[in-house]
């Protein structure tokens, strides 16, 4: 009996887990289920496993079990207190060599993208970056199902599905927020395996001198439940004040399309779209955004989209659940009032 292992890199910094890690455990479970039948027939075991590096992060390993991992390989050492490219990729490549996973998923965050290429090169295997769809599927000439990793390319204009026939693991980095969060199972059981480490500080080849936190608000638009986004139709940068008011009422954040960022109306972390952030809020309100393709690919997975534009032909309406043709300077204030009224009614 051999084990078919589906691996997920659990990304954490300063004890905070990046939610994409849990999303990936969910995906890994889904992929594992797709080969279940095949594995049962061959008498193989299918396992979803997490790999975690850090310092004093045992509780995170425990969380990983709750989010669906059967086992977590844990490297707990001060050397891993802060993410650094070299010690991380070398350690992960080594442990992958030891256990030979079939699939290895990493979040396509800045950290994950920094890391994934290193692991793949060290293992001399294939890596598909920035995926938005994953399936285990049959491919001609392959005895077992292969990972079919789909990613947007050429500015989101095409979707390419990539597979890796012979080399293992089949690696993918996966965008945050394209897959749903799996449920937290408080009764989940699993195993935490502490792995010995083989990297020294001398071999780390780097030294972090300091962390500079950005001044001003810390925008985390990717995980906001509500985004009120503005576009060129606002006319002036002050238009965002109004959007902010609505966002505050809804407990959300303000986003923007690229032209506004380019014009310096809002800072880059607010940008939604292909060249900015991919978001998947519960509610996305697009005000004065025309809806260029590059914007749409970043927000069309939102649960509910309300678009406001004076131009009835604006392409944003193609992805909106409700389109309001009209002046946002009339619509947004009305919305603020009605939200206030609804909240009062709730209270």
């Amino acid at each position: 009996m051999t084990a078919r292992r589906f691996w997920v890199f659990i990304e954490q910094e300063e004890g905070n887990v990046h939610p994409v890690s849990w999303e990936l455990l969910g995906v890994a479970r889904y992929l594992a289920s797709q080969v279940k039948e095949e594995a049962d027939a061959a008498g193989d075991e299918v396992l979803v496993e997490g790999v975690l590096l850090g310092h004093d992060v045992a509780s995170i390993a425990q969380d990983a079990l709750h989010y669906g991992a059967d086992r977590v390989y844990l490297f707990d050492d001060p050397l891993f207190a802060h993410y650094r490219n070299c010690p991380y990729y070398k350690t992960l490549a080594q442990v992958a060599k030891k256990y030979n996973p079939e699939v290895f998923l990493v979040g396509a965050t800045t950290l994950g993208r920094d890391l994934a290429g290193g692991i793949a090169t060290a293992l001399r295997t294939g890596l598909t970056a920035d995926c938005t769809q994953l399936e285990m599927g049959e491919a001609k000439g392959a005895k077992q199902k292969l990972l079919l990793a789909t990613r947007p390319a050429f500015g989101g204009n095409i979707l390419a599905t990539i597979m890796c026939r012979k080399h293992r693991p089949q690696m993918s980095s996966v965008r945050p927020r394209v897959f749903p969060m799996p449920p937290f199972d408080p009764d989940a059981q699993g195993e935490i395996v502490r792995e010995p480490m083989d990297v020294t500080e001398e071999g780390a080849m780097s030294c972090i001198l300091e962390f500079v936190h950005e001044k001003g608000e810390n925008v985390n638009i990717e995980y906001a439940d509500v985004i009120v986004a503005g576009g060129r139709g606002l006319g002036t940068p002050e238009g965002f004040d109004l959007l902010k008011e609505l966002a505050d009422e809804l407990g959300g954040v303000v986003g923007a399309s690229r032209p506004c960022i380019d014009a310096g109306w809002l800072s880059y972390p607010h940008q939604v779209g292909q060249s900015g952030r991919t978001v998947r809020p519960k509610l996305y309100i697009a005000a004065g955004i025309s809806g260029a393709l590059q914007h749409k690919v970043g927000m069309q997975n939102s649960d509910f989209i309300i678009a406001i534009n004076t131009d009835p032909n604006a392409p944003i309406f193609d992805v909106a659940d409700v389109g309001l043709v009209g002046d946002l300077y009339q619509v947004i204030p009305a919305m603020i009032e009605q939200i206030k009224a609804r909240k009062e009614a709730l209270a």
Partner: protein
Amino acid sequence: MKRKDAFAAKQLPDDLAESLPDVYVDDLLVSIKYFVDEEQTHLSIKDDAVCARCQDKPCLYFCPVGVYTLDNEGKIQVAYQACVECGSCRVGCPYDNIEWVLPRGGFGVAYKFG
């Protein structure tokens, strides 16, 4: 020197005016390739006060790529990034109020087909 009365606005007959469809100019602009000069504009309004006094503001209409728009305060905004460098605004502004130079070498519109 241009005379303002040479540009006195005329009205199209109603039926013709109504026969003009609404066009979303951005849909056309996506077909045009630009090398946008992020550092400097090649188009600007010489004097906003002149535009404020201009009754008809024809630049809002005749520019083939809709470079000129009004903001909420009624001020003309110049989206030079969309300019195809045809020169119509320089020639057509009734008050010679548009500063028009060519973009820096290599920047600006780059027709793929022409």
